[in-house]
């Protein structure tokens, strides 16, 4: 039920903010109708669970995103320097990092964080870890990436 309310509120907020009309009865009715259809479809497809309405990560994930932004900035500078260097010193390799988060949402968040930081792309999600492709020697830092995963793991379950 909590997820249902959060989903309806999020959809209503999206409609209102994107249309920008708060006093046009016709548009508000259309908005209500489309929210109803969306929620009905979500319920019918049985996707209204912890994966698509991830309330479990909610409170602490914002702090994590803030931290992630800094990491993305640092990694961007490294990759830009390689792209513009006269002789780029690339040393790409595939390596596996452990998977600290336990929930599927946490694992997806971790894998996407790896991809979001330029220089590392998650290629395959396995039982025992994530296969990552790294661009240079310095970026293939298993300890740093594991630390990122542990931060995601700390967000898990904080909202339940």
């Amino acid at each position, binding site marked *: 039920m909590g997820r249902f309310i959060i989903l309806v509120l999020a959809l209503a907020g999206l409609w209102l903010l994107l249309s920008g*009309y708060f006093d*046009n009865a*016709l*548009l508000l009715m259309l908005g209500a109708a489309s929210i109803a259809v969306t929620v009905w479809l979500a319920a019918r*497809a049985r996707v209204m669970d912890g994966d698509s309405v991830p309330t479990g990560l909610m409170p602490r994930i914002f702090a994590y995103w803030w931290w992630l932004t800094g990491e993305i900035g640092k990694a961007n500078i490294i990759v830009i320097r390689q792209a513009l260097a006269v002789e780029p010193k690339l040393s790409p390799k595939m390596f596996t990092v452990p998977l600290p988060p336990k929930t599927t949402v946490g694992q997806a968040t971790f894998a996407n964080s790896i991809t979001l930081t330029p220089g590392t792309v998650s290629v395959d999600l396995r039982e025992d870890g994530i296969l990552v492709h790294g661009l240079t020697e310095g970026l293939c830092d298993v300890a740093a990436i594991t630390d990122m995963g542990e931060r995601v793991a700390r967000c898990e379950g904080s909202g339940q």
Partner: protein
Amino acid sequence: MTEFETVFSPIIFLDLALLTMLFLVAIAMLRSRHLFGVVMLSGIYSLLSAAFFVSLDAVDVAFTEAAVGAGISTVLMLSGMLLTARREKPKTPGRAPVALLAVLATGAALFYATIDMPAFGDPNSPANSAVGQDYVDRAAGEIPMPNIVTSILASYRGFDTMGEVMVIFTAGVAVMLLLGVGSMRGGRRVSDIEADDAADNGKAE
């Protein structure tokens, strides 16, 4: 805005850049024999043309181009590719001087015709001053829609638009039925399809 500013505003350079890229992509599509490359280039082509429509203020056309051109038609063309080979067969280029002459003459005539056309966005052009102005004046009062383009499409041109929507929908459904593409069976996993195929093979044997 004076004549000078109109000619040398950055928008003109933007338009020129977009049109040049459109031209290059079109040439590349013609010359490529790699069918998948052609499909990807056509996706890029419609992204570019939609950006150009935005630059021409044709926002509704840009919306349609974005949804149909870049989204659905790429997928439909890929589904078509499923039924054919990956590469186009090499073709000996024929020479057709008469056709070339006809194309050049038509092009020259079209160029000549543009000289008589009103300037882009000219408020005194026939399209903007006669019926168009009437719609602009009346739409806001007669129909409670915030956007004039929407109100004209959905109300004054209602029957027309409804017909268009139905034609496009029917055509889309027909294409999907004809192709019978598995990737459009909706939300099924690859493993399901494999299982199906295995079952089919079992039956055949």
